[in-house]
């Protein structure tokens, strides 16, 4: 007791040096709270700064919404910049010059997405450990081994400082850093608080890292590995047929003059004897993939990066086939869904001619997909094979310093890569070696180097900046004729009514058969790429007679038209079949029809296989109920669809029944053995044309099965599984929106900041796709009408703000789930945006450097 009720102090008579129990208790509580306050425990951040009401997590509420008016300074601005945020949270930047516009863009992106900027850059530069600690060490070492810092630094050093991308990257960095410099403690994004970290300054090279990361996502195809694995089990001829150079269903991006798809079905050769050398090579190749990319192979594991998870659609319709007589364009890249979104929406206007709206990746100056006053464009991934490996002869099996080329020793470029932790401490030092081709890794007793087009880009991102200013289709096509990686199927339409599509990127010219799916001899320069394919050999079409063009990651060109090697083992063209079917059937397309097509849930894949399943089930009374369910199904993946659950379960059961020859021997004893590699379903359909092929026989049973027996068994198993997992078919459990959900994860995979278990329309291979675990899908849907005044509609899942306290964090999600699009505002000047649509005004002015 310290004082009595009257406030008079009570005289204590304790000995001065004898701490009381109460002192001990208080001191313990103080020490404990101080520790928790300063350090945190486990996933719990330091509680002091986290709970602090002035600058802690609660303070994020204060800056969650944009103020009506605000001002800021950015060094280097040549004139004040006016930024109007519209009612969708999209900044409209009005600047005097394009460099000022990029400065302002860096500022507004950092204002909304600062943590995302840093995280994705660190993910490419191999410095995640500095933010996340030791748990990111392996990822960082992989980045370094893959040569990303080497490539980015080399690219920066070789860059002409007056080039468009150099100027843009510098200006963008000015803007980002101006925001960081002005950042008050209350505005520090939540993720930094959770990680107890501070934002790092943005460097122009970080823009390069972003493009390298995108190349890894989009241009790391490896058709070699799957084929090698198959060859190891069923021999070369069968592997070639199962993982073919050309898709057995031809509905190419470049129209081939056919009025519909062409089915190039051939009889598959029987399985041959295993090729043990190929199997060893496959294992090495798989390890190589892991060493360079940290990615276990997709065919052996269901992982987020796997090809079945990503893909995109785009199409254009010529004025002659639209209701209004104006060209229409639809863009719909399917990428990983994240919070905040991989995209940031922005409108950049500069007095020197720039006037473009659309989306960009945070960290990339300009607009990547969008439209200006004359042209609209979008991309899908080509999936080109632009990566080769070379076996090198080195002077030392353990610590080489030289490699042999054409009989002479050449010095290896050697870099010591130091990975640091959160406090700057050294976590690891790795020696990374490079030949003239690229990074070198040790595989078994071999040294293999990598050559990849992504390393050969001189100023990645520059092409997109040129596209932003194109005034017509011709100028747009010229704008990216030197584009390197990742190869993209770019569609474009202009106000004059022209449409075009070109699969653009550098395609290596290889010696011999020209194919990229084999290991090459590094000691001989004759094994090197001899150059790149000429532009006029790229898959391309402009103003075709059919009046529309579409791409959905299918084989871009009919091999009968253009036999050049672009890649192998192409996606089954289910989405391409469906969009071409829709576009052929509609000669009076409206913008709303384009929107509906984007959200179309009808499955060309189901249309191909369900009749086969029903034919196989005919006469089998035990399959009557399953057959009736498939018969009643309209082949769509709408939320209320019930047949989709049975179809997916059946197709899941079918693959191991058909491809039992591809199940590794050591997996045969598993309760549900899975093949190591599974051919594309287009190949399965090709096989279905041959009902007595030996491939149908399940060699694990004494009987000899043919097609219908296997299909019936798959349906039986699929039905049993669906009953087990979803209950009786008439129950709610079979609804597609109960069976499958979309999951939009926060960048740090924090469930509390994610939007999970979202009922969604669409499934594997539908135009509105939601495959696997629902973590990938339509990341930016856009429809543009190229009329006298360009009009755009678009949406992405999430919102513009990365602040979870903001109403703009998730505001677009309900409309995205409903398949709706927002009207994109595109004011020609600040006065064009109605006052009622202006959410916030920001004035940026220059400051002394």
């Amino acid at each position, binding site marked *: 007791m*310290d004082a009595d009720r009257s406030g008079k102090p009570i*005289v204590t008579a304790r000995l*001065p040096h004898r701490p009381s129990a109460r*002192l001990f208790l208080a001191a313990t509580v*103080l020490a404990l709270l101080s520790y928790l306050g300063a350090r945190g425990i486990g996933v719990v951040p330091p*509680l002091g700064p986290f709970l602090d009401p002035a600058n802690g997590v609660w303070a*994020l*509420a204060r800056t969650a919404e944009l103020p009506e008016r605000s001002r800021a300074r950015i060094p280097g601005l040549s004139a004040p910049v006016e930024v109007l945020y519209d009612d969708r949270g999209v900044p409209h930047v009005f600047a005097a010059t394009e460099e000022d516009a990029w400065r302002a863009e860096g500022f507004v992106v950092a204002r909304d997405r600062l943590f995302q900027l840093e995280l994705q850059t660190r993910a490419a530069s191999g410095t995640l450990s500095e933010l996340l600690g030791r748990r990111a060490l392996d990822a960082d070492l992989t980045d370094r081994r893959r040569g990303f810092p080497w490539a980015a630094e080399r690219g920066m050093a070789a860059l002409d400082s007056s080039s468009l991308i150099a100027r843009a990257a510098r200006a963008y960095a000015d803007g980002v850093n101006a925001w960081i410099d002005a950042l008050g*403690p209350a505005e520090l994004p939540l993720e930094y608080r959770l990680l107890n970290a501070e934002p790092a300054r943005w460097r122009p090279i970080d823009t390069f890292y972003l493009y390298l990361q995108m190349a890894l996502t989009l241009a790391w195809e490896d058709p070699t590995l799957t084929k090698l694995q198959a060859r190891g089990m069923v021999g070369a001829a069968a592997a070639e047929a199962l993982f073919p150079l050309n898709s057995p269903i031809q509905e190419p991006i470049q129209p081939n003059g056919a009025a519909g798809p062409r089915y190039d079905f051939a009889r598959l050769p029987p399985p041959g004897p295993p090729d043990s050398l190929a199997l060893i090579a496959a294992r090495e190749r798989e390890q190589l993939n892991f060493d360079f990319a940290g990615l276990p192979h997709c065919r052996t594991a269901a992982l987020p990066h796997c090809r079945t998870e990503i893909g995109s659609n785009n199409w254009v319709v010529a004025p002659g086939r639209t209701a209004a007589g104006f060209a229409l364009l639809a863009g719909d890249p399917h990428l990983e869904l994240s919070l905040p979104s991989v995209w940031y929406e922005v409108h950049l206007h500069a007095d020197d001619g720039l006037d473009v709206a659309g989306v960009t990746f945070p960290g990339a100056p300009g607009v990547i997909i969008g439209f200006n006053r004359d042209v609209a464009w979008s991309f899908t991934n080509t999936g080109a094979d632009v990566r080769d490996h070379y076996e090198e002869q080195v002077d030392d099996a353990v610590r080489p310093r030289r490699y042999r080329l054409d009989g002479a020793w050449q010095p290896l470029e050697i870099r010591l890569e130091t990975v640091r932790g959160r406090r700057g401490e050294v976590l690891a030092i790795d020696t990374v070696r490079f030949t003239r081709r690229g990074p070198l890794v040790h595989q078994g007793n071999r040294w293999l180097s990598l050559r990849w087009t992504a390393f050969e880009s001189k100023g990645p991102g520059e092409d997109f900046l040129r596209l932003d200013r194109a005034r017509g289709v011709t100028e747009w096509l010229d704008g990216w004729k030197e584009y390197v990686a990742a190869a993209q199927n770019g569609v474009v339409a202009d106000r004059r009514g022209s449409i075009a599509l070109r699969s653009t990127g550098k395609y290596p010219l290889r010696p011999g058969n020209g194919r990229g799916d084999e290991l090459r001899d590094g000691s001989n320069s004759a094994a090197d790429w001899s150059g790149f394919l000429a532009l006029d050999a790229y898959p391309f079409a402009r103003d075709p007679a059919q009046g529309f063009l579409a791409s959905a990651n299918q084989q871009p060109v009919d091999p009968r038209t253009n036999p050049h090697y672009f890649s192998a083992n192409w996606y089954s063209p289910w989405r391409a079949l469906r969009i071409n079917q829709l576009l052929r059937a509609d000669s009076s397309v409206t913008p709303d029809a384009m929107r509906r097509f984007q959200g179309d849930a009808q499955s060309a894949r189901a249309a191909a296989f369900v009749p086969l399943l029903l034919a196989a089930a005919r006469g089998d009374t035990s399959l009557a109920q399953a057959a009736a369910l498939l018969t009643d199904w309209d082949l769509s993946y709408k939320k209320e669809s019930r047949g989709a659950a049975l179809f997916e379960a059946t197709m899941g059961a079918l693959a191991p029944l058909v491809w039992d020859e591809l199940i590794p021997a050591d997996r045969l004893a598993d309760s549900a053995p899975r093949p190591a590699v599974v051919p594309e379903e287009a190949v399965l359909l090709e096989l279905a044309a041959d009902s007595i092929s030996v491939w149908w026989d399940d060699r694990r049973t004494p009987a000899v099965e043919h097609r219908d027996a296997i299909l019936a068994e798959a349906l039986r198993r699929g039905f049993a599984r669906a009953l087990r997992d979803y209950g009786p078919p008439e129950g709610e459990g079979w609804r597609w929106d109960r069976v499958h959900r979309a999951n939009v994860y926060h960048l740090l995979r924090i469930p509390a900041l994610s939007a999970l278990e979202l009922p969604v329309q669409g499934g594997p291979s539908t135009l509105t796709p939601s495959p696997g675990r629902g973590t990938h899908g339509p990341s930016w849907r856009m429809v543009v009408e190229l009329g006298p005044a360009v009009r755009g509609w678009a949406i992405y899942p999430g919102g513009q703000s990365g602040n979870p306290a903001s109403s703009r964090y998730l505001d677009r999600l309900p409309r995205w789930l409903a398949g709706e699009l927002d009207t994109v505002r595109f004011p020609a000047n600040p006065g064009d945006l109605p006052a009622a649509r202006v959410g916030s005004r920001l004035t940026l002015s220059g400051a002394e450097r």
Partner: protein
Amino acid sequence: MRRTVPAFLLLVAAFAVAAPLGWWTVPLVAGLWGALRPGFPRPILAAALAALLGWSVWLGIDLGIAPDALTRIGARAADILQLPSTLFLLLTLLFPALLAWSAAAVACRLANLLVPRGQG
């Protein structure tokens, strides 16, 4: 009473005003308060209550400015720590209260030990 209410309000204000400098100002202010003990009844309890109220002032202002955003961030932060929202709010208020209580108590005891009241 005439002196204690203003003194207490002053203490609340001190906690509130010092908050932008950092959470560590809570034990600092409370420690000073506990050491000086300005003739206040139950000074340790007063420190705890004042710290709680000092931080509440900030939350109250934010509630007035951005009620929806405050609710959203409270709910999300609570989810991250796997706590109910109300418990997270309670944690936010109890943290400075306990910190102030313990700091004031330690300071008070130490002051007593070093310079016992009535002897100094």
